[in-house]
């Protein structure tokens, strides 16, 4: 089924269209949810909530504003944020209240993140866990899903310039965290 057919079927509450939507977009939504929510049981619950909301509010989808995939990711992102707020998981991050990462130069960032180095990759993986879930989601959508700034802004209900500045800030944070982990 084509995407338009799936959307038309979802508007009619067709179980076949719903099944098709799950098969086509389920993994993508699961990846978005699993990278922000832990443990797995909570991620499963949020995943189900996302698609139930999609099926109930399919009539609010506007094809002119975004693609169906981006619209799905937006709902998934918002559900994850809502779930995290509900659970009131307040994690203390290394960069909380500390803006010293602003002193890191762009050259240092490129040196750390650009030059291929397996050790640095492992450090970056450890550093990513110290980022807040929303920043993890943003850099993953940019570097892994290769989404544009406009699409990421739609998902996070922000504007592209804000996403660009957040990306820049997150890169510097990662460098600072890596330096901290090294020491």
């Amino acid at each position, binding site marked *: 089924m084509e995407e338009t057919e799936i959307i038309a079927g979802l508007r009619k*509450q067709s*179980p076949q269209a*719903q*099944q098709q939507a*799950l*098969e086509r977009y*389920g*993994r993508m939504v*699961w*990846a978005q949810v*699993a*990278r922000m929510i832990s443990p*797995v049981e909570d*991620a*499963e619950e949020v*995943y*189900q909530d996302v*698609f*139930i909301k999609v*099926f*109930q509010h399919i009539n609010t989808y506007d094809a002119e504003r975004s693609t169906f995939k981006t619209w799905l990711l937006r709902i998934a992102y918002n559900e994850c944020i809502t779930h995290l707020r509900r659970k009131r998981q307040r994690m203390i991050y290394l960069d909380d209240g500390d803006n010293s990462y602003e002193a890191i130069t762009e050259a240092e960032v*490129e040196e*750390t*993140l*650009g*030059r*291929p*180095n397996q050790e*640095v*990759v*492992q450090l*970056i*993986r450890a550093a*990513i866990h110290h980022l807040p879930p929303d920043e993890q989601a943003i*850099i*993953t959508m*940019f*570097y*892994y899903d*290769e989404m*544009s*700034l406009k699409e990421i802004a739609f998902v996070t209900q922000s504007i592209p310039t804000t996403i*660009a*500045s957040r*990306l*820049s800030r997150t*890169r510097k944070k*990662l460098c600072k965290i890596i330096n901290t982990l090294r020491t």
Partner: protein
Amino acid sequence: MNEDKLKDLLNQDANLREAIREEEMACPQMPPTLNARLMQRVEKEVNQPARKRIATIWPWVAAACVAAVLVIFLTPPKDNVIETPAGKQIAEVKPDSTKVEEEGTKAEEEGTDTPLFDATSRIAQPTLIAQASTPAPQKQKAHVAEEATNTAATPTQAEEIVEAPTLQADQTLASQDPQPEVLTKREPLLLSESDIPITRPENLRYTKEELALMKKQANEAYLKWMELELEISKYNIEQTAQK
């Protein structure tokens, strides 16, 4: 930071991209039964709107019941007037051992000039009336009616007659009642509307006859007052003429 520079970053930050790729690979895989469970849940959610509609009606039904109960309790009570084929007989009263005739009191009214007093006495003595159909009470009626006509038309005498009905009734019953068994029977007494004690102001209503009598008495009193005023003025004129 424009799109072109960002595209360069995608190519430059190789370590970061590799790290993110490895993290994504390490993320927990989607359970194979997750979609099936989701479809089951979706089917349940589809059935729930009907229940929700019913559930949303219940508060309105409960509110309507509460409003109905409030209306029932807050509406003023109606008069306990029950119309029977007998006419104005509206309430049953447990019969006393003595009876005083309604016709007797009516005869007293006709014979006296104080209907108002009779009305008040009627109000004060609700158990004064008996059914007119039995023969023994009829004999009593005639006897009491005779007594009423024989007695003077004064309020005190009428009061005595009305206030001591039990004594007179006893005497009459004892002396002339040929069928005491009938009287001793506990027959249900029927009262008229005017015999019900006035416990609420809105139940106090004058009958048309009482209103007519009151008007008549008011007119007579006015005429008497005018006559008195004329006499006084005549006397004053005579006094001044003599002077």
